Each structure stands twice: as structure tokens, then as C-alpha cells.
């Protein structure tokens, strides 16, 4: 599936436990490896865990499961706490 990279900007990123992470702000390319390295995600959901004042995070491409109308990534316990209040 071939896509223009500008179509990814602004997509919502969710984990496979249906937790909202943020919106795609930018894409990091690995020029030597000729592949996508990571998605830079901004507008972070403040409830996913310790953000320590960071405005964004990079989601490595290997944890991305699927890209369509949204971006679906693997849920990593310990990084994404889930949106339920504990």
C-alpha cells in the first residue's frame, strides 16, 4: 500500500487497547535505511502516563500495527497506562 506521506499528518494515534495517544505531527525518515523510522506524535493524551512536561513523543515504526483512518500501535503496558483513573 503506497501512500503520500502528507496524508499521515494529523491522524489520530490509538493503541490496540483503544487508548488515545495523540496526533501525528511529523514523520522521522531514516535516510540511510530508506525507511520510516518513527512517527512524531504531539497533542498527547495527558492520561496515558508520566509525560514529565514533554510536548511530544516518537513512536517507533516497529510498534505500528496498521495505518488507515487512524494509526493503530501496539499497547505497551508501563508506557501507556490506559485511560482509566487508578
Amino acid at each position: 500500500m503506497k501512500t503520500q506521506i502528507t496524508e499521515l499528518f494529523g491522524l489520530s494515534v490509538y493503541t490496540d487497547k483503544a487508548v488515545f495517544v495523540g496526533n501525528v505531527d511529523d514523520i522521522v525518515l531514516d535516510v540511510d535505511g530508506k525507511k520510516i523510522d518513527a512517527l512524531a506524535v504531539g497533542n498527547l493524551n495527558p492520561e496515558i502516563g508520566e509525560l514529565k512536561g514533554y510536548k511530544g513523543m516518537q513512536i517507533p515504526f516497529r510498534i505500528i500495527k496498521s495505518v488507515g483512518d487512524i494509526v493503530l500501535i501496539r499497547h505497551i503496558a508501563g508506557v501507556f497506562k490506559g485511560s482509566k483513573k487508578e
Partner: protein
Amino acid sequence: MNKTFCRNLAKKKVMSNDGMLIGTIKNIIVDLGTGQVVDLIVKPDDTFNTDGFRMDGDKMFVPFEAVKDIKDYIVVDRYLLRKSA
């Protein structure tokens, strides 16, 4: 490893390694299944002869394979440039 943000690339000039100005980058085609970067979409410069290149209207496709380096310019290999992906 040489990494770059996409938004950094906007409006960068594409130049071949023999010093010819090819054009300005418009977009990038990626394969989301594998994560591979497939093509650059380039708006060719008026002085550049696009005969023999893959074209779509006034846009030109440059295989990402041909990209040597990205700093202030995007430098592409002039031999790999014509190869169709």
C-alpha cells in the same frame, strides 16, 4: 544513522551528484506495510529536461534508492535516477 524530519524536507531542492538542479520536493511516497520509502515526488525545475523519467502530469517521480544524502539539498545519484521502482 542519518535521520530527518519530514517537515524539514518541505521545499528543499533536489540536485544530482553531478551538480544539476532537478527541482523542488513536493511529497514522499511511502509503503506503510513495510515502512519503506518508495519515491520522492519532485516538481522539476524549468531548466531540467524530464525526457525518459517517470512523470505524472507535471510531477516527476524519483526513486528513493537514488538518494545519496539529505542536508541542505537532497542529493540524488544521476545513474539511479532513471530507474523505475
